[in-house]
């Protein structure tokens, strides 16, 4: 089933009764060429590119819950590529370019909206760090520009730039190509496109452990619904990576933290862009439905509880009210948490593992939604060819042994 003007018209006439399921419910087969564990955007996208670009279609994507129910469906959807280091800028900008044509590619409206991402500077240190980013990005041909407080307010009228604000705005970095997308549609679009090419999407099927054969090579996955054999296994389960990889004997430099977000009641358009403030941990944009979408910082301790503490949200809301006094009377409708897997250098790990046939895509932490198409694309390449794509080669697990880190942590303090 493809969406077109004609199919929309027909269904409009027929009371929306002609739609068919977008992907079939299937039972797992005993053996696959490749199993991808985790049906988030990254895993589903990897399955799609495996089928489309590498002709590997005997593929299953397993999820312990429903597809897109992890961080993909829980994030605040900020998309940008203005990271400091060449390696990061390369990978994230690869993703940003794929975002620009993703709706056409998938015949699925992912509502990618390049409304610009404004990152606020509140301290002298922020100014220095952001300007360094701006110059590093411009050198690579990635758009990022420095705005004065007045220019920032012209771009985002509700922003409070008064000098006596608790967190005065001293300037901002703006990436105009940045923006937001509809998170669910990304998962659904990739799922439908992958299923169309023969990929099995198996929901409610948690991977319990990874099985290896006598030579140490990957043999398949033990799941809640029994053993499923595979030539290759690719793990893409975000916050749940450590326990699953441990079952294959691979210990990782990851810690899993709760990260929260909340949305307000819907109102008329008021926020024209995305605003981020790393210093006060407030991230805000307005969805096309009209809700203010607000992101928080992580809790301080590791957790798998998939909910965070209320005082974290409270601090974020206080900061948002200072930056946007006009939002102080908005009512919040829902808040929730996701579990994000954080690496010591705040850069992801995408590549091979010491176990032959086992691949891992993790460590995207608080900021991997923006990378979804790019990460999926290079991860599929890595799985199909058993060697990394040029863009993810630096993101190898071995960097924690060699010391060749990609230290966005030191560059930005947070990694949204």
């Amino acid at each position: 089933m493809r969406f077109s003007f004609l199919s929309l018209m027909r269904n409009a006439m027929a009371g929306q009764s002609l739609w068919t399921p977008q992907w079939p419910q299937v039972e797992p087969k005993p053996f696959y060429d490749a199993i991808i564990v985790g049906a988030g955007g990254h895993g589903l996208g990897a399955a799609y590119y495996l089928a489309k670009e590498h002709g590997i279609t005997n593929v299953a994507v397993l999820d312990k819950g429903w597809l897109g129910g992890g961080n993909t469906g829980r994030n605040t959807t900020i998309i940008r590529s203005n990271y400091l280091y060449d390696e990061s800028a390369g990978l994230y900008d690869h993703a940003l370019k794929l975002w620009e044509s993703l709706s056409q590619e998938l015949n699925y409206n992912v509502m990618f909206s390049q409304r610009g991402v404004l990152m606020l500077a509140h301290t002298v240190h922020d100014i220095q760090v952001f300007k360094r980013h701006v110059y590093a990005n411009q050198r690579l041909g990635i758009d990022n520009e420095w705005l004065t407080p007045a220019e920032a307010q012209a771009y985002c009228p509700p922003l409070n730039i008064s000098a006596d604000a608790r967190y005065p705005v001293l300037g901002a970095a703006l990436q105009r190509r940045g923006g937001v997308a509809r998170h669910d549609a990304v998962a659904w679009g990739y799922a439908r496109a992958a299923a169309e090419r023969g990929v099995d999407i198996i929901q409610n099927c948690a991977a319990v452990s990874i099985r290896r054969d006598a030579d140490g090579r990957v043999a398949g996955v033990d799941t809640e619904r029994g053993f499923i054999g595979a030539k290759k296994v690719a793990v893409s389960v975000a916050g749940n990576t450590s326990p699953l990889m441990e079952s294959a004997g691979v210990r990782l430099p990851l810690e899993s933290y709760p990260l929260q977000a909340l949305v307000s009641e819907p109102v008329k358009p008021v926020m024209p862009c995305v605003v981020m403030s790393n210093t006060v941990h407030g991230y805000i944009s307005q969805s096309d439905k009209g809700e203010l979408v607000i992101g928080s910082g992580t809790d301080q301790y590791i957790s798998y509880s998939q909910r965070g503490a209320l005082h974290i949200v409270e601090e974020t809301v206080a900061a948002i009210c200072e930056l946007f006094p006009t939002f102080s009377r908005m009512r919040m409708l829902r808040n929730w948490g996701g579990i994000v897997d954080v690496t010591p250098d705040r850069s992801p790990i995408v590549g091979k593992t010491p176990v032959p046939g086992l691949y891992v895509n993790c460590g995207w932490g608080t900021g991997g939604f923006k990378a979804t198409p790019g990460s999926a694309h290079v991860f599929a390449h890595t799985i199909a060819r058993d060697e990394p794509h040029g863009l993810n080669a630096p993101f190898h697990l071995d960097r924690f042994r060699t010391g060749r880190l990609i230290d966005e942590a030191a560059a930005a303090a947070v990694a949204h």
Partner: protein
Amino acid sequence: MIQVRCPYCDALLPEQEFAYAGQAHIARPEDPSAETDEAWRDYLYIRSNTRGLHKERWRHVHGCGRFFNAIRDTVSDRIQETYRMFETPAGGSADE
């Protein structure tokens, strides 16, 4: 928000008085220059990231200022017990 008992102050207090300080009982290499790259990687970066009972350090930053250990269930976030540095927890051994 969770509540944490400081074993030095012997008081149950809100989490905001404390700073989480990561996995507990990670032994510093005794002879640093003799260590391999693999051992350094494990010491500096590899973490158990346990799903379940996790031994971790906390610091009573807005109180006595001291470090101590806790055993916490990372699925429910509930703290089972806290104990002083160099003490053995009631529930078992101090190493992992």
